[in-house]
């Protein structure tokens, strides 16, 4: 039996009185592409951000490649990890945001080399070559010197994917990567993600693109009110949903 790339066990998270996650347990296997669907406020983005510890969870545990995230067990008690240890754990996952969040004062290439150079402190020449190769891979080799403001939304998001990949992550997290794009630009980003999935990358994708989920996902998770309602292959969850809530959601978005 393989160890899961990500294991969630009883994960709880509240924002004030709002319970965003109510005890989520889930495994993401190595090489698996998992799509998370659900209405806004269902907890899917919170679940994604908790893997990257962009906010700490209140209860439960998350293991990335066997390593407990954010906490350390010692003497029968749990201790919070230091900021530096959390930063190191974060660098093992790549994250792509809905609003791209490229660094506007750096060129496309500058964005991609920033993490490997400043965080991982790898040699400059190697990082540069790898970054150029990544920009080529997402089809933007000729835009290396462009600032984000000069790029379309689709191009910015592809640079953001290259930036995340430059950290050589074990896992890629996508938080509604195409929701802020004009419809004609969605395809180019999905094409890059499709290629990435085919290359064997483990991916968790929060998305409203059910077509992409159906075609690329190994598993689809439908979440509602902070809990997993239904999980299965795309054909099962999107084709023959067993739960009433899943059917209601799908009838609204299809």
């Amino acid at each position: 039996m393989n160890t899961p790339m990500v294991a969630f066990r009883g994960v709880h998270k509240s924002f004030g009185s709002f319970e965003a996650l109510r005890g989520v347990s889930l495994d993401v296997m190595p090489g698996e592409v998992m799509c998370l669907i659900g209405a806004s406020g269902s907890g899917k983005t919170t679940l994604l951000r908790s893997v990257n510890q962009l906010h700490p969870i209140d209860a439960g545990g998350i293991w990335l490649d066997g390593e407990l995230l954010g906490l350390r067990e010692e003497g029968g008690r749990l201790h919070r990890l230091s900021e530096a240890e959390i930063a190191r754990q974060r660098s093992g996952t790549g994250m792509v945001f809905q609003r791209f969040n490229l660094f506007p004062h750096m060129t496309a290439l500058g964005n991609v080399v920033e993490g490997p150079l400043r965080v991982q402190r790898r040699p400059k020449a190697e990082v540069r070559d790898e970054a150029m190769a990544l920009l080529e891979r997402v089809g933007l080799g000729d835009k290396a010197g462009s600032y984000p403001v000069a790029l379309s939304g689709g191009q910015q998001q592809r640079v953001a994917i290259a930036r995340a990949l430059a950290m050589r992550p074990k896992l890629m997290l996508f938080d509604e990567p195409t929701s802020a794009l004009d419809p004609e630009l969605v395809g180019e980003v999905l094409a890059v993600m499709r290629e990435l999935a085919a290359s064997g990358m483990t991916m968790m994708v929060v998305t409203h693109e059910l077509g992409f989920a159906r075609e690329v996902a190994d598993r689809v998770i439908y979440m509602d009110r902070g809990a997993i309602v239904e999980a299965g292959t795309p054909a099962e969850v999107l084709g023959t949903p067993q739960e009433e809530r899943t059917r209601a959601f799908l009838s609204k978005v299809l």
Partner: protein
Amino acid sequence: MTARGGVTPGFPDLGGLAVARRPFWGRWIAAAAVLTALGLILKAFAEGQIEWSYVARFLTAPTILSGIVNTVVMAVLAMALGTVLGIVVALMRLSQNPVLVACAAGYTWLFRGTPLILQLLLWFNIALIFPTIGLPGIWSAPAVEVMTPFVSALLGLGLNQGAYTSEVIRAGIISVDEGQHDAARAIGMGRLTALRRVVLPQAMKVVLPPLGNEFISMIKTTSLASVIQFPEVLHSAQNIYYANSRVIELLIVAGFWYLAVVSVLTPVQMLLERHFSRGSGRTR
């Protein structure tokens, strides 16, 4: 009704016609009025009791030149101290640590709440409270020797400036999008690296125009240090006119130099702003 994409006939083709220029009467009248007023003012000054030869002579007098150098050096050092303090205090103010937040707020309250000239006088006369100052057991010296006009002016101007600059920098940091913090953390950056590489460079775009404004203001505020005998340009001018009674001539000399320095700084500020607006799409 016209067909799809067709247009209704009856509208003339304007393609061959040039647009005639409207005469700008208002501009001509305004220019004439301003020139007349300027002429009258110049005439008044030329006929007034000003010995222009004194202005020309003292414009490059060694005392005046060393005064303006002192003014610029003091402004640069006080601004540097103020900016470093400002960044530190802004970060304290934005931190999660309630003790640091309170310290930062207290500092801003104290130094913004009292007149600068009073603070300068206090620093200069601090020997009256503490005859000797220093670190217990390591180093100490008589306060009169340490608190020279230069040191008192630097402390007074710098600490006061820090209180104002901290608010400017805090505004700049707050203006940086929350997503930028997320993105920096997501690639494993620690808090300090994120601040240095991602947040501050973007905050600079917002911070620079008011900071340049403060610096230009600082050039002139150094003149307050004349009350504690710091030999900046106004103090030099005063020393000369106490001796020769050419008050207006020497004030004109000092005024000329302030204007000259500020005129040089304005384009420098423009260049800096252009540098930090890289990638904003508003580079002009």
